[in-house]
């Protein structure tokens, strides 16, 4: 833990040194101290924007996880449904779904709805795929054992398949979280009516680079904090598996 922290400190120091040594104009890249000062000065604006962004991200994650999980259970129950829909679900993986942003805005306006739908569309499919891989990847031995105990389909799903799928499902939640952040932020770039994305676009238009850098760093911190929290939760939930 110590060495990576030193690396990040070194990056910060290098940034600071480079800015002062080469006389980089603050319009292009302000030093870390200037950025920090901006964060303190503009704390109200940044805090409000971050709160709006964060709440949309959390909402998008919740929607993506719940619907993705439900779809995977439905699709997992029937092999005909699986055969019918799964090729399309896989195909969506190569579609750059962020490109939907302008289309969604034309249909749903520049409000929260467009961003939530974008984040949902990006985060839904990985959740379905991961959950499905989890519940279908149960070992044959386990399934046969459950069948030998005359377990019903429902019991097999709840007591055998789902517990075995927990690591894969949590993996899906992590992917969902990562891409939901991207969906909301890109949505804010295009539908600039609130959030950190709006702060970034506005400040870069008015050449307030310190604010742009500050807001970008905040988005990075938000993403990291969400995934860090998930990582901690995962270690609690999947206690039977050793950490990385």
């Amino acid at each position, binding site marked *: 833990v110590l060495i*990576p922290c030193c690396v990040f400190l070194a990056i910060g120091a290098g940034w600071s040194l480079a800015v002062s040594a080469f006389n980089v104009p603050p319009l292009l890249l302000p030093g870390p101290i200037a950025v920090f000062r901006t964060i303190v000065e503009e704390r109200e604006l940044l805090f409000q924007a971050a709160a709006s962004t964060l709440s949309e991200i959390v909402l998008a994650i919740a929607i993506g996880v719940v619907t993705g999980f439900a779809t995977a259970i439905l699709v997992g129950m029937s092999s005909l449904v699986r055969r019918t829909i799964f090729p*399309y679900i896989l195909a969506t993986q190569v579609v750059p779904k962020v490109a939907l942003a302008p289309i969604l805005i*034309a249909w749903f306006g520049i409000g929260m709805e467009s961003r939530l739908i974008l984040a949902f569309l990006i985060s839904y499919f990985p959740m379905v795929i991961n959950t499905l891989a989890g519940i279908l990847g149960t070992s044959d031995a386990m399934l046969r054992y459950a069948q030998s105990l005359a377990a019903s389909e429902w019991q097999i799903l709840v007591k055998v398949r789902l517990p075995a799928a927990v690591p894969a499902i949590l993996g899906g939640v992590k992917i969902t979280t990562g891409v939901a952040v991207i969906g909301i932020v890109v949505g804010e770039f*295009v539908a600039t009516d609130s959030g950190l994305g709006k702060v970034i676009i506005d400040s870069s238009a008015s050449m307030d680079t310190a604010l742009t850098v500050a807001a970008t760093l905040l988005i*990075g911190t938000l993403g990291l904090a969400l995934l860090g929290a998930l990582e901690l939760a995962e270690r609690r939930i999947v206690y039977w598996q050793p950490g990385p």
Partner: protein
Amino acid sequence: MTSLATMIARWRAVNWPALIFGVAIVSLWETLVRALAPSQSLFPPPSYVMWSLYVRFDLLMEHAWPTFCQTLVGFLLSVVLGVGLGWIISKSRTLFEALYPVVVVLQVVPKEALAPLLVLWFGAGMLSRTVLAFLIAFFPMVINTIFGVRSLNTAMRNYATSVLCNRWQFLTKVELPWASTSIFAGMKISVTLSVIGVVVAEIVAGRNGLGYLLLFAASRLDMGFSLAILLVLALWGGVLFAAVVLLERRAVYWRR
């Protein structure tokens, strides 16, 4: 007779439920929109999307080339530099301990948020988009390479030492083939990400490219053309992905 047999086999191999489902969805969309939608431009039926694709094909291709080139360059850069850095990191214990957590953290950070800053630093042209595509696609390559190289077991390592293979042979004949599965898995992730990177940068700021054209078409509420552009982007993503899969089959021929 054999041709008939293969025909029957092919007939059976087709995923009929999926095919029927696809056709049903498209025809349902077509009929519903024709019957209910107030404006075909705002809610276009599939036939209108295909028509826009056909009518504006030249304009589409003019904007598609920059996007295609930038995704390719960004992707190839991320593969070359990602595999290189991943290999270097996995060779030294100190480097691994110092840099691996950093790489994992950077992998998690939403790099799409950098788009406006990159535009500020590198201008609204090719460079900023290629850089964003590279940045997004780079870290999965590094991580997968590290994972692949480090999974080389000691038996293999000892064997390679016992037959006195030199460093270059060890790299090309042992390490890279061993890590190839993991590297190709990384490439499959990165190739889609590089398209996303270019499109995000084009949407945020640009004068050409499919992302720019899409933003323009959508702002004029020409949804038929917007969806046609999206279709081209999706096809391009599919083509790149298929290329990686084909390359993998060629390169990792022993693991059929």
